[in-house]
């Protein structure tokens, strides 16, 4: 299991209502349903991922996040989750605002563009970083709004969103060792737990 999904499951209370934006193959919702009796819905636009959700009996609704969450009522979910999709949105700040309107809390994960590998790549090759985590060339990447942990926290401050928890995840050993001291330099993925 992806480490970030593990941590997210810990932050979600049993028998609550969860909306998962960009739910992929529905794995997280399936786990939450099975182990925490969570009633969940996923939003997804990828056709194959939608079929995988249907096949495993996960509620999936074809909906483009860039068109907003206008169809969801205020406070209609306990938690709104979005894993690794923030950087693909046209207006990420508006979507996070919407997540906190629709849900009491939200959990967001995204890749850290301030991680040392990305900085190194850009500094020394002078080209946009391409890595295992972000394997796309700049022109065909779905990731159009990169940010660093620090950038994201500035956004939270400006909008007066409260950060309940933050967890930083790293793949490599060196990053794992230093991520707690210098998360913005060594963290690969951040998991933020926000509330209004």
């Amino acid at each position, binding site marked *: 299991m992806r480490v970030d999904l593990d941590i997210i499951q810990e932050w979600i209370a049993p028998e609550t*209502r969860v909306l998962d934006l960009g739910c992929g193959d529905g794995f997280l919702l399936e786990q939450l349903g099975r182990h925490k009796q969570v*009633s969940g*819905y996923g939003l997804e636009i990828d*056709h194959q991922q*939608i*079929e*995988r*959700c*249907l*096949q*495993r*009996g*996960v*509620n*999936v*609704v*074809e*909906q483009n996040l860039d068109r907003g969450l206008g*169809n*969801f*009522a205020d406070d*209609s979910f306990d938690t709104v989750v979005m894993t690794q999709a923030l950087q693909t949105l046209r207006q990420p700040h508006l979507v996070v605002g919407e997540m906190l309107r629709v849900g009491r809390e939200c959990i967001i994960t995204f890749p850290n563009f301030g991680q040392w590998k990305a900085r190194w790549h850009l500094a020394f090759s002078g080209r946009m970083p391409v890595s295992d985590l972000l394997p796309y060339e700049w022109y065909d990447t779905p990731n159009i709004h990169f940010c660093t942990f620090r950038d994201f926290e500035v956004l939270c401050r400006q909008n007066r969103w409260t950060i309940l928890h933050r967890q930083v995840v790293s793949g490599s050993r060196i990053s794992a060792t230093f991520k707690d001291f210098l998360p913005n330099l060594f963290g690969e993925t951040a998991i933020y737990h926000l509330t209004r």
Partner: protein
Amino acid sequence: MPSETVNPSGQIQPADSVGIVTPQSARFDRPLELACGRTLREYTLVYETYGELNADKSNAVLICHALSGHHHAAGRHSPGDKRPGWWDNYIGPGKPIDTDKFFVVSLNNLGGCHGSTGPSSINPDTGKPWGRDFPILRVRDWVHSQARLADLLGIEQWAAVIGGSLGGMQAMRWALEYPDRLRHCVVIASALKLSAQNIAFNETARQAITSDPDFCDGHYLEREKLPRSGLAVARMIGHITYLSDDGLGRKFGRELRSGTFEQGVEEEVEFQVQSYLRYQGDTFSGSFDPNTYILMTRALDYFDLAREYDHDPVAAFSHARCRFLLLSFTSDWRFAPQRSREIVDALIRANQPVSYAEIESPMGHDAFLLPSERYRRVFFAYMNGVAAETAPEVN
């Protein structure tokens, strides 16, 4: 693996067809109280079944037909039949409604004209065809009569009730009227209620029929007449609205069937689309009953899922106990994707399990009947999940 087999009569039959099917009919003597206040003392329902009912009777699927549909949804009645049933694209071995896994029941609704009791049947009180005196039916009347058919077949709970368009309205009504009698509700290209524009199209179609001099105030059968041209025009109007501008354009453009625009030549011109529409109207009016057409379009107009729930679809859906799949088609402007999204939103607000996919298609409302790869895949994935629930546990 061979993809087709030759049946005894020498006709080639695709391996994913249910093959030759025979309609059955069931007679009901227990009176059926109707939403309009009248009672049908006795009635007949014609139906077909495909596949085998399993031992615990948990794999039954009900197909609800749309405006001009009937019981013949899949397979052929005889080897020489030119066309298979109306939903043969999606019912059969290995198809989304997989007859290797499901026992499929498809009936002709009350008020129909393909064998079930309707306006062209004989009214037992008068000995004459019902004609316009046949009771005005609503979607819920169909659902109640379908429940009686389920009783007759020994089906306590459907694995799924499935319908497109007007059929989708029946499926939703099932979820509210008999919440314990279905586990899944599949609603394709449907709506919570028709829009004013939709009612307007239906009214124009009805007017075409009733203003035909051969309509005889609905008693044309007694007078041995048939308002064929009125029904043909009604069908033409309907048909245009079931297709999209783009779909018609792709199929016909401005192609001419006859005549010419050459300068100096006076000759009547006929566009391909004209002849196509006339053909559609003609064939339909030879095989469908005008009073049934009026009855079915009225049932469409009158349907409003949430009417008795204070017009609140969320309150209505809070009674449901099944899972839902909603599908819509991008170019469908009579039952636009937005209508399906309203259903999805209401279901989510009512905390009901629902999935939704919007299928890209240029084919308008008719897309729900036509082959489409993504439609097939989505439908298949969902029904596969339904079948997995009904499959016996392997230890």
